[in-house]
């Protein structure tokens, strides 16, 4: 279907290439906005258009200043010796963006751990034979993914406020864990769906006790699914902004919260620099997932070709 058949007439040829051109535009539409901001983050001027100097690739039109601003904004003594120990620790302690990044990672790591642990356990339970109310429970466990974020945020805001969890780290961690578990449940159940239960019987017949079977046989085989679910949960927490808007105070400010404030008031190119860094993080995650997927397929005896 993909190659142009030799019997195609002029209409067929036109359609074939026209179709490809159209698809090309759509793929460009998908990727271009993200790629466009990357060079802009190196713009030496605080504007959002490509200056003539940038297009002609003159080196003085590009600079690292916005990336430096990420490290400097909020520092007590930004003009001290750059890269000295005091400068670095000043940046680490006081720079707004660094503070926000720290918070993002802390919240994401903890909520991922909770989500992965609970989600994997639940997925193991769900795929057991004779699980009662399977469909209903599955629907409930996936609901955080379906319910519009604004409603989750509103509900959590009212409830957590009344029990004193609003504007605290545990509060936002629990909230993000709740939002991340559906992903873990889905990926682990998908992995378990292809799980050959004969392996368990084989292990039992060779004399392994159930816990030993679990740790030595089941865990290694489902670990790609668990890890990819964990990555989904991590990304969900790291990129999340609506719940963070309602549930966090100044101390728990995340990168996304900071970006939101910046975009609403006045976009400075620092935001574009942060956005570029986040795109890099996405590329990393994508690569990791792809590698995991290949490993998974290899383990199951399928090839990628």
């Amino acid at each position: 279907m993909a190659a142009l058949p030799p019997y195609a007439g002029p209409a067929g040829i036109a359609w074939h290439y026209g179709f490809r051109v159209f698809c090309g535009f759509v793929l460009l539409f998908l990727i271009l906005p993200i790629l466009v901001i990357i060079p802009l983050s190196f713009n030496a001027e605080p504007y959002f258009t490509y200056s003539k100097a940038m297009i002609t690739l003159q080196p003085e039109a590009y600079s690292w200043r916005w990336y430096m601003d990420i490290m400097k904004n909020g520092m007590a003594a930004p003009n001290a010796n750059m890269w000295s120990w005091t400068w670095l620790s000043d940046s680490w302690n006081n720079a707004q963006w660094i503070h926000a990044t720290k918070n993002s990672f802390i919240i994401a790591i903890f909520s991922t751990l909770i989500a992965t642990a609970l989600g994997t356990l639940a997925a193991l339970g769900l795929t057991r034979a004779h699980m009662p109310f399977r469909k209903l429970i599955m629907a409930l466990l996936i609901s955080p993914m379906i319910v519009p974020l604004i409603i989750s945020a509103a509900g959590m805001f009212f409830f957590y406020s009344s029990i004193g969890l609003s504007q605290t780290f545990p509060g936002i961690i629990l909230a993000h864990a709740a939002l991340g578990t559906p992903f873990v449940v889905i990926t682990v159940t998908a992995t378990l769906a292809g799980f050959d239960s004969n392996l368990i019987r084989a292990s039992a017949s060779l004399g392994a006790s159930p816990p030993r079977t679990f740790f030595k046989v089941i865990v290694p085989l489902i670990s790609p699914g668990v890890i990819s679910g964990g990555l989904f949960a991590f990304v969900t927490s790291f990129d999340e902004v609506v719940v963070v808007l309602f549930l966090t105070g100044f101390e728990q400010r995340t990168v996304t919260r900071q970006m939101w404030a910046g975009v609403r008031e006045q976009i400075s190119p620092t935001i574009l620099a942060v956005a570029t860094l986040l795109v890099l993080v996405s590329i990393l995650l994508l690569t990791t997932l792809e590698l995991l997927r290949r490993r998974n397929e290899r383990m199951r005896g399928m090839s990628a070709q």
Partner: protein
Amino acid sequence: MAEASAPAGSAKTTYQRIVDGGSLKAQLRRANRRQRLSALAMTGPLLLFLLASFLIPIGVMLFRSVDDPLVGEALPRTVEALADWDRADLPDEAAYAALVEDLLALRDGGADGRAMIGRVATRLNFEDAGVRSTVTSTARKADAMEAPYKAALIEADEAWGDRGIWATIQRLGPDFTAVHFLASVDLRYTVDGEIAPQPQERQVYVSIWMRTLMISLTVTLACVALGYPVAYLLATLPMRTSNLLMVLVLLPFWTSLLVRTTSWIVVLGQNGVLLEFLAFLHLVDDVDRPRLIYNMTGSIVAMTHILLPFMILPLYSVMRGISPSYMRAAQNLGAPPATAFIKVYLPQTVPGLGAGCVLVFILAIGYYITPALVGGESGTMISNFIAHHMQRSLNWGFAAALGTLLLVGVMALYWVYDRIVGINNVKLG
């Protein structure tokens, strides 16, 4: 069956347990029950966690949309005195006396009591604008009042001589109220207790619901128009090329929502990349450039971009599973390519199409961030109004009512999705 009797006190072997365990049926039942219990025990922790941190909060929010005990708590005697009032004329002296008594009780109730006066004044003001200062100023003058209270109150503020404020107190007296739900569809109670539309200049929510649905529908259709061809191309190309091109779909999918929306602000702005480029090519007038952002266009374009991968991925996975021999067979039997496509290929992709459409639609109607950042005034959706009432006007009951309606809508669509795809078949990537 041999009877194995173990000496008292020693452990039974597995064989002995099997033999001793009774009939096969009973043993099977017991084994199944154990499996069920262990399955439940494993899903239990997550269920409880979600119950506490997610489901109950949402339930509490739903409750808030009807729960309204403030007026009943603050003005109990007044509410009771108004219980039999028929609203045809002003209430009788007893109601006025009860009101003065309630206000005095609140004033003598310390700081909390006085705060109650402010809060009930604000609450009544939501329904009947302007009564806030009536209530607070009357409360201040309350201890100087003597019977007959009716005359005294009307002299203090002429609003007490109007049925409106009394009707509001009577209506908000019970613990539960439907006013928020009525307001969320631009209806209200008249003084006489009937349901009527809001005044013309305050009607906005019905049009916002319509606009939300319309934007979501437009985005869904755009995603189908753009996504179906791309999914088809990716599914029919050889694996290698397809995987390479897939990166162009997956990278946006994995990029943060905020980053993508920000990049659209940069691209579509008045002095942004696209318009500068078009002005440079003299395709648009340089001085009077079209507004591409901070309006509905901006919302639709950005949302299409963000939701397109959600359409492409399910379609792709369904299309991958369609064998090319169907199309070949159809053309072999004499169908022109177009007919073969419509009659043979398209019907097979309907599950993927349905899944993608419903998924994109569900996600679109709940969107908040993108319309807030690039929607301007004409591109905002219902979520933005929910947020407004939570953060700005502090009318939390009303925000909860809007949220409840949205949730009910989404649940209905989710049920549709389940019928088409099945919850157990949701896959990621």
